[in-house]
């Protein structure tokens, strides 16, 4: 019957393993919201009772709001800069024959693999040698470097997914490069741009290592969490804060991936 019948035959142990894998992948993170609603200050079983107390307490804290604003400013700036640069880079990579393209792409993608601490200390050394004060600006620079590879990788399949002859047709019909970009290319890659904005914002919002080395006196949200970790009595409110961040991050990333879903499916299949 079906040519792939023996491959398609469901493999029960493997299905069980896959389900278990997903459970283990998400389980540790789910304990954070679980204990953030617990009345006890200690993170341990048995649970003592349900409360919103820690969330309410969080709302009254000035430093949390300040850190949130810092993170939002850094995150929004980072996502706009890295997505803006990423659009052009992705277009250049997919549309033009460039000498030495392979090594160049490898170089651009370096921040994905090189340990964050190396970039963190290297940038710290550069910035201090230049005599620049550490601030949210330096954190943003670090975040742009971390986020650019993500932005480019998100948008490359978008550019690969649409036919360059549409752009050529626009040029043949008399549009210049600028208007061709705005009226043809931009609408076609728009879902990719949105996805990249959401994903790079999340990466920046959650990023810790660059912020650790490059922030001055204004902490980002992850830096604030880090500074509170050594106080046991702050634990429940940190759990509450962590739960909020996780939920928001999951939602943003999911939305970003969903916007970009059609390209990814074709991209993965064609590869």
């Amino acid at each position, binding site marked *: 019957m079906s040519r792939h019948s023996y491959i398609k035959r469901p493999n029960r142990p493997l299905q069980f393993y896959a389900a278990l894998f997903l459970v283990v992948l998400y389980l540790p993170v789910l*304990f*954070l919201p679980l204990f953030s609603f617990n009345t006890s200050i200690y993170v*341990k079983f048995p649970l003592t009772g349900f409360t919103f107390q820690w969330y309410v307490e969080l709302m009254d804290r000035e430093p949390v709001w300040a850190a949130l604003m810092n993170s939002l400013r850094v995150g929004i700036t980072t996502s706009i800069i890295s997505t803006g640069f990423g659009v052009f880079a992705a277009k250049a990579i997919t549309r*033009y024959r460039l000498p030495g393209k392979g090594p160049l792409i490898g170089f651009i993608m370096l921040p994905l693999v*090189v340990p964050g601490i190396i970039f963190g*200390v290297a940038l710290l050394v550069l910035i201090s*040698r230049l005599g620049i004060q550490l601030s949210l600006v330096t954190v943003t620079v670090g975040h742009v470097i971390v986020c650019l590879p993500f932005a480019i990788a998100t948008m490359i399949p978008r550019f690969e997914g649409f*036919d360059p002859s549409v752009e050529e047709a626009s040029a043949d019909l008399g549009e210049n490069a600028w208007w061709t970009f705005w009226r043809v290319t931009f609408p076609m890659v728009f879902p990719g741009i949105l996805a990249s904005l959401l994903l790079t914002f*999340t990466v920046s919002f959650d990023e810790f290592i660059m912020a650790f080395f490059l922030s001055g006196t204004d902490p980002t949200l992850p830096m604030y969490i880090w500074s509170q970790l050594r106080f046991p009595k702050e634990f429940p409110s940190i759990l509450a804060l962590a739960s909020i961040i996780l939920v928001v991050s999951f939602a943003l990333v999911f939305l970003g991936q969903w916007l970009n879903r059609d390209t*990814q499916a074709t991209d993965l299949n064609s590869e």
Partner: protein
Amino acid sequence: MSITNGPMPDDATGLRKTSRLGALLQRSEAARGFTLLSPTLFIMAVGILVPIGILVVMSFWTQVGFGFDTTATTANYQMAAERPIYGALLRRSLWMSGMATMATVILSYPMAYFVAFHVHRNKMMWIVLITLPFWTSYLLRVFAWKVVLGYHGVINSALMNLGLIEAPLEFLLYSQSAVVITLAHAWAAFAILPMYVSLEKIDKSLLEAATDLGDGPIARFLRITLPLSLPGVISASLLIFIPTTGDYITPTLLGGPDGAMIGNLIQKQFGAINNWPMGAALSIILMLSIGAIAVSFMLIANFVRKRIS
């Protein structure tokens, strides 16, 4: 298809007719491409090459109080070679991330295999589900493991409540195994992608041919699926091994004294110890050792791949 390829023959004949014009066109095409790429290349050069260059230079300086003595000396490297603590920490880091890499690849491979061969509808949904945690805060995921493995954490308090243990298991937190577990868990999502892509690429007719020629499922897997997916396994291993070796968040939160890694020491040089040139030298040593291991791993893996296929 015909529309897509339409302009191509014209271009080709044009190129052939006037090769000088063609060369010019191609050059200007590259020039246009590089113009588009230039902001990215600029920021990457300023953000990666220049800082690492300065890091290399600084590793030959010496710290004097809050300033630097900029006379070039290899004292930092000599000290790193002579004092056993540096070598020990480096070896331990490489060992621990090696263990984490092995665990991640072995545990993630079946999952990648499952999605590539046994998921037929909503494949994308599975990929998104698996990779979702990877995008979210690394700090919070490590923090979650602290909650799970803690002295009074989820596992210990649950086991004590069930009456299975009398006192908390101390080896869970502040140990090398805690760090390895956390690293493996944190990077699993990242490991699956390259393995999935190389499994997905395998031509299914090869599997049919093997079956027709009498191979059972195990022989088929060992002789076709595994060798053909090795490139994915290799890149997954490198993608986990390289960044985890320099990690310092996980060892700080979960490692304790036994689980400290070279990243902690580098961070301390730039923090409490305040010896930046030593920290720079250690970073360079770390990069070089990771590079050496990655290259030899790739050579060995390629050699093995050629032998078995």
